[in-house]
């Protein structure tokens, strides 16, 4: 008997079932049976779908609930700005008001396609507006300042690739800034408002692209809408991917490319089957011409968008290059078409080649930038696994009380539910969609989700787990949607099941938000906190940076803490000396109680003209665990704030001029010190 891979997997799955305890065997056998049920999803499509249908549906009512949720969020933010506790009590319930009714509506089989698309677009936009409400008048997230500097350089010079010491890799990936420049210069909008519009457009693109791609794969509007909704529960959807940063545009573009490519398999298989008939039938020749044109259309669209992605964000580019390669391999393994004739291989090869050219551009620091970060994270993880290093304490808050128990439970539940459902979803995918190479590729990428969670135990790599979520949730959401659709078929669906699934999705959504927002809601409005990114941006810091631009003139070499660095580099237009650009760690100059010869040497090496000291750092612990650099002495283990003597030492040092004092922030002119050393 000929044993095919599907037979062997089938027998392996049943072998695993036999090993499991008896109470678990029954539901899993039922899942295995339902997993391959092609009739699980019954479509309820109306004859006509238009604006009238939409207005007569639940869409207006659900828009109203979203608007109410947004109003409550606005009130919670305003209360938090005034020092109130509204954020803790109102923010998450407001998000639930927006998310849960839409989740329930999308689960219902009779909802029309146009209503699904409209609800998803509305939820995506409302989530984006939550971010806008957090800071409606100026940039506030750390990464936004880094890209604002690149945008400002392009606006000033009219050309790309100027140096940006805050994020040296950013000018080499200027896609986001190019679009913002196009809108800003031709419409008259300022940088901030132009950026809001660009990221808003990217958000709409992301939702539409996800829905369309999932619909092409799953052949069901309901399943596609669930997959898109499940993508929105990833920790970075609400805030991180709504900020003005290159990933916010690159990810929607890349997803749009996947949508363009998704019919590739169907078209190329039809073309292959048609080939033997072409010499015999005239109709076949015309059909072949049509399919060949379609393939060219798919390839051209994919190339165009892929090149745009390559100019927009490095990690998105690398991830999707890898996805294309794996897809091409799976495609070849399924013997759907010889490799040398596969358009998919051509697209992947072009993608990799253009990426390599982009990396090889003179001065592009992307390899060093990513490899140093990744190697540090992997090394730390290795030390933890080998027992030579200690794991990061989870749910630790470096500057205040620990994360509340309920938040911990929700976060763990969120990751736990996804991890538990993942194998079940993969089983359904194998039973139902294994003939589709892209679906299988998605299944493969899902396996990385539990793996990257291990990085949460490291200090430097904790960000990897969060950042990977935005990418891994594209396949993960599809797999989870397949699980929901196959395990609870529409023909047997009842309100109890709908409630259960909605509750689980809402729980995972809230857990993801708590994960994404970070310790003590660092990304949300509230009173000033030390080194807390958005919470540390205050009028005093901004006015100091503006003063430096007006009175010290731009492009002085300055050194400061994490927050004042970005303010001085953007509002102040100064040349900030950073470890990432200049490979000089100036944190000892600020942290040591006395100015040592080593400190003077560092100032000389960095050719520092001004030091900017924020005395508020002597009163509070840093929320992110470090004041200046992740590599500074005591980073992530600070028990007391910086010794005030560390700053007052500059007052007692000859040749150091205290040129500016705004109470909290002091600027020292250290040119004399640097000259004396020289």
């Amino acid at each position, binding site marked *: 008997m000929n044993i095919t891979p599907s037979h062997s997997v089938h027998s392996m799955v049943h072998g695993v079932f036999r090993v499991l305890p008896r109470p678990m065997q029954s539901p899993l056998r039922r899942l295995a049976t339902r997993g391959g049920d092609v009739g699980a999803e019954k479509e309820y499509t109306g*004859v006509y779908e238009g604006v*009238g249908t939409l207005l007569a549906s639940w869409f207006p009512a659900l828009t109203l609930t979203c608007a109410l949720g947004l*109003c409550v969020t606005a009130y919670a933010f305003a209360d938090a700005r005034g020092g109130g506790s509204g954020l803790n009590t109102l923010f998450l319930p407001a998000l639930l008001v927006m998310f849960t009714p839409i989740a329930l509506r999308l689960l219902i089989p009779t909802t029309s396609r146009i209503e699904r698309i409209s609800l998803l677009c509305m939820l995506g936009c409302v989530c984006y507006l939550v971010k806008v409400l957090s800071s409606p008048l100026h940039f506030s997230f750390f990464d936004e300042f880094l890209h604002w500097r690149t945008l400002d350089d392009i606006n000033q010079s*009219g050309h790309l690739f100027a140096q940006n010491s805050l994020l040296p890799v950013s000018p080499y990936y200027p896609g986001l800034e190019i679009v913002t420049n196009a809108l800003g210069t*031709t*419409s008259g909008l300022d940088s901030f408002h132009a950026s809001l519009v660009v990221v808003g457009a990217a958000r709409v693109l992301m939702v539409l692209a996800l829905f369309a791609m999932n619909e092409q794969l799953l052949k069901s509007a309901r399943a596609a809408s669930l997959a898109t909704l499940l993508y929105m529960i990833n920790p970075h959807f609400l805030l991180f991917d709504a900020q003005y940063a290159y990933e916010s545009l690159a990810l929607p573009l890349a997803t749009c490319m996947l949508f363009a490519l998704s019919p590739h398999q169907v078209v190329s298989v039809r073309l292959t089957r048609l080939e033997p008939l072409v010499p015999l039938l005239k109709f076949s020749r015309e059909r072949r011409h049509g399919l060949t044109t379609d393939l060219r259309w798919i390839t051209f669209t994919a190339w*165009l968008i892929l090149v745009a992605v390559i100019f*927009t964000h490095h990690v998105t580019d690398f991830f999707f290059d890898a996805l294309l390669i794996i897809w091409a391999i799976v495609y070849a393994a399924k013997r759907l078409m010889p490799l040398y004739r596969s358009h998919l291989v051509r697209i992947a090869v072009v993608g990799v080649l253009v990426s390599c050219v982009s990396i090889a551009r003179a001065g592009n620091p992307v390899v060093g930038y990513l490899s140093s970060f990744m190697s540090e994270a992997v090394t730390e993880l290795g030390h933890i696994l080998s027992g030579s290093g200690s794991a990061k304490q989870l749910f630790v808050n470096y500057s205040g009380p620990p994360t509340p128990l309920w938040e911990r439970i929700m976060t763990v539940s969120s990751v736990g539910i996804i991890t538990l459902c993942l194998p079940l979803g993969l089983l359904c995918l194998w039973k139902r969609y294994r003939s589709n190479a892209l679906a299988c590729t998605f299944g493969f990428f899902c396996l990385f989700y539990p793996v990257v969670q291990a990085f949460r135990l490291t200090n430097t790599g904790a960000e990897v787990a969060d950042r990977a979520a935005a990418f891994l949730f594209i396949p993960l959401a599809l797999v989870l949607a397949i699980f929901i659709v196959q395990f609870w078929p529409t023909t047997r669906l009842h309100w109890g099941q709908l409630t259960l699934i909605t509750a689980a999705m809402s729980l995972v959504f809230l857990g993801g938000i708590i994960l994404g927002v970070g310790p003590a809601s660092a990304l949300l409005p509230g009173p000033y906190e030390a080194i807390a990114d958005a919470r540390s941006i205050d009028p005093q810091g901004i006015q100091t940076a503006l003063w430096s631009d007006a009175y010290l003139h731009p492009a002085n070499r300055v050194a400061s803490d994490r927050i004042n660095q970005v303010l001085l580099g953007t509002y102040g237009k100064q040349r900030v000396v950073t470890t990432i650009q200049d490979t000089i760690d100036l944190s000892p100059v600020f942290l040591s109680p006395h100015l040592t010869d080593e400190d003077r040497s560092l100032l000389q090496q960095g050719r520092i003209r001004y030091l900017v000291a924020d005395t508020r750092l002597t009163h509070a612990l840093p929320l992110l665990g470090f004041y200046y650099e992740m590599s500074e002495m005591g980073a992530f283990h600070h028990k007391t704030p910086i010794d005030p003597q560390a700053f007052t030492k500059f007052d007692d040092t000859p040749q150091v001029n205290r040129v500016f004092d705004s*109470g909290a922030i002091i600027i020292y002119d250290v040119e004399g010190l640097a000259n004396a050393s020289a």
Partner: protein
Amino acid sequence: MRLHNSDLLLATGSAVLYTGCTFLPASMSLVGLLLALPMVFFVPGYTLTAILAHKRTLDGSHRLLLSLGLSLALDILCGCFLNLLPIGLRALSWVLVLSGVTVLFALIIIYLRRGIVPARTPAAGMGNGADAIPVARIVRGSILSAFALALIICALLYTVQSVAQQPANGFTQLWLLPPTQTTQGCTVRVGLHSFETTPVTYRVLATINDVQANMWPTLALAPNQVWEQGIAVPPAATAKYTSIQVKVFRGDKPNIVYRKVNVTILDAKQGCRA
């Protein structure tokens, strides 16, 4: 022009108006914004989609998606192209390149569409299915949607207002800038900028080598008011260094130094060098 090219007529018209908007005065920026939005985010991608799928019927959501995605991709590629030109990424170059691309694609699609009979599609809001929907439900839905939109706008306006009125601790900036050479010797510039929430009275005391040089006993500044003065530094007779210090006291706490700055000048006779 045939009727089934009306979309291209609209696209080309947008491109022409977009080019014209470059010459609008700044006061007409709303018109510029209304023209820039479709030209940056939709029209170039729409015309390219029309070329790529000229023999296929695309679903409305797919057409919208591709128009948006391809427009953004074209913007990025056009930006890279403009970077190679001396003019760079400026308003005029953007308008010309995006309009040029749109018109070029429109001409190509007009050529490709020749001889193709357009398929009849029901207009939006019309059709058999729509007739079955009670008008009352549509009206109710429209009212609810309008109310929801009004609520969202209110939430945004409320937030903008709450940020503008966010309680913040007032502060005052004091600075002392490095000296500049004058005929009488060196002059350093001292300045105060009040960001306090109420008018504040200050006392400013300047010393040169610990000897009082200037004093401004009652300096009243309203919020956001700036005060600047020059302090002449005579050449020192004996000392190599001349130390200038400025202290500021608030009227309500006259004995506590509120702000202080200092600059040391190296040999004022030789020139003004901090």
